[in-house]
């Protein structure tokens, strides 16, 4: 039996207003799925496993790790301004040691990453370009329940096409 692609969704609203998005994902039976609700947990998962797709939110809480907590505190305990999701991506892809001096896992590549956030594409375009991330979707009211599944499908289809 071939193993399923592994997906990590880094999102703090998954069990709240976005909870309807996981039903189609599980029902599809296509992916092994993990959820990280803060940056500390995400880093823990990223070090423990290799994923085929990462879906990352921009506004994330830091979790218990002091490095990320400090970054969060420096912006006044505010998810909106801290944008820890972007900082996490800069650390993972640009290996920015000013964000976290620990080296990030080597296997994370831009084509494995999709950004799913309330920010518009225009707002974070510069970051996406710098990091080479092509898959993006903006959260908004009225999105279908399959939006997360579609985003993962799109990401993996592009990754396969790139190979």
């Amino acid at each position, binding site marked *: 039996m071939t193993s399923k692609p592994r997906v990590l969704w880094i999102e703090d609203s*998954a*069990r*709240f207003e976005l*909870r*309807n998005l*996981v*039903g*189609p994902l*599980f*029902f*599809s*039976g296509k992916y092994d799925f993990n*959820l990280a609700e803060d940056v500390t947990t995400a880093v823990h998962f990223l070090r423990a496993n290799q994923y085929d797709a990462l879906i990352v939110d921009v506004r994330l809480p830091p979790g218990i790790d002091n490095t990320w907590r400090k970054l969060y505190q420096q912006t006044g305990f505010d998810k909106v301004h801290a944008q820890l999701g972007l900082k996490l991506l800069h650390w993972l892809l640009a290996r920015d040691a000013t964000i976290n001096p620990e080296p990030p896992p080597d296997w994370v590549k831009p084509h494995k990453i999709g950004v799913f956030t309330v920010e518009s594409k225009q707002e974070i375009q510069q970051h996406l370009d710098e990091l080479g991330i092509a898959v993006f979707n903006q959260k908004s009211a009225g999105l279908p*329940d399959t939006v997360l599944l579609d985003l993962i499908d799109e990401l993996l289809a592009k990754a396969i096409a790139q190979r």
Partner: protein
Amino acid sequence: MDAKPIAAELVQGFNFLDMPIGVYVVAPDGQLIACNRLVREMFHLSLDGPLQANVASFYVHPQHREQLLAKVRDADERGTQPAKEIIPLRVDGKEIFVEDYCKPLRDPATNQVIGYIGCLVDVTTEEQAAQRAVEAQHKMDVLTADIGKVWHASTSTFVMARQTLDGVIDAMAPNPFGERADVTPEEIDDVLVKQATRLASVIERFLQTTDTAQRLKALPEARWQLYENSVGLLREIRERVPIAELRLPTLRKTAYEANRLCRDARAHHLPRELTRDVQQAASELERLTILFDAIATQMAIVQMELPFATLREYITAEVRTQETRERLVVKPLIEDSIKRLGDFARSSNVEIHWRERDVYAEVEGNKRDITRVLSNLLHNAIKYTWRRERTRASWVEIHTTVDTQNVCIQFENWGVPIAREEIEQGLIFQLGYRGKWSTDRGRLGTGIGLTDADHVARDHGGEIRVESKPAAPALHPQDEAHYYQQPFITRVTLCLPLVGNPQRGKP
């Protein structure tokens, strides 16, 4: 007589040139006769040359000068203090504001007004700041009125959502837990998992009984693959979806899809009885997920109804028309509050105990304000109550006492502490302040309830008293780290003066 000699005498006899405020003498037409350095600076005149300026020319509105002089003469005739006016002037195109204390200068021989003598203070900075404050206040009033309207619409939406959920809950009946309000998330999860397992068994039987060729006539292979996937998901739902909050939407989606497969299939190719079993089991699972979701959402709405309403009233308080005060019997006010909080108490599984019900004392006040305060205090008491005994629901107590001056309504609960310094420093009454220990277990709040209660109590000549102490003081002494982890008995009391008490209505 000319005013000049008097002015000259003033200058010689009393050295006002270096006084820290502007001093001047003018002729009746406003021509400057004498002034000190500050006035020269104020009007951008040469500091040591002859005076060739007329103060009337600096007035932004010439009628201000006429009005000022009329008031000055009037005050002088009545022997009262010189009038003080704030006057806008324009000097070299720039607007300044001065405070002018002015009185007529009379000829000692004839008592005729031969000019005016006065002091000027430049208050431009203060006046501009005051104007900015007025503008800001105006903007704030407009904004709060707008926020109030939006908030009003939001609370209406809440009411509509609640009514809709009532309909959904009725339509999705019966509830396996009946009228029980103390159902735990684990119990709900158990019911869902049981039904999920049942659906998995039915689907499995269906797949085992029907042959592949038959099935493919009814639906394409990819759809059957989903069906097969769902068996594993339904059987191992706790392992596959370890986060409890995500299980319910996942099961709802799975049940919905299982139902849809049956609907989409060309039924005459499938065994009718087995298809019906799958549909029934899937419908039941879908029904339960919708029912539990609707109940949970409704409870969340019920919890937020009063804070929303209070916030709305607080925002719109300044723009509401002043409502008249009336004599109010306390008993129906308490009853009204208990009624308003009935749903919230039930959904929180908290009973309201009120023993001294015969409170016929009367207060004078605004019915809406007092009812809101009582409701807020009761809401807090319910919200911050912990369960005391395994075998019975939690409770809050209402005590009412009446003495010769006041009636006091006390709300007592057992649970979340209020820290001593929060009471002593009055922090709990600060707008937007939320108690240190008040946010445990995800309790939401606005930090407005007690501020509002304090305002209303004072406005009615009364007060709010708060005390919070450990239920069992010996358990954890105050210097221990666990001091505030133990249950506290918190009493919040609204005291209002009785009708006939002279304190009544004192701010």
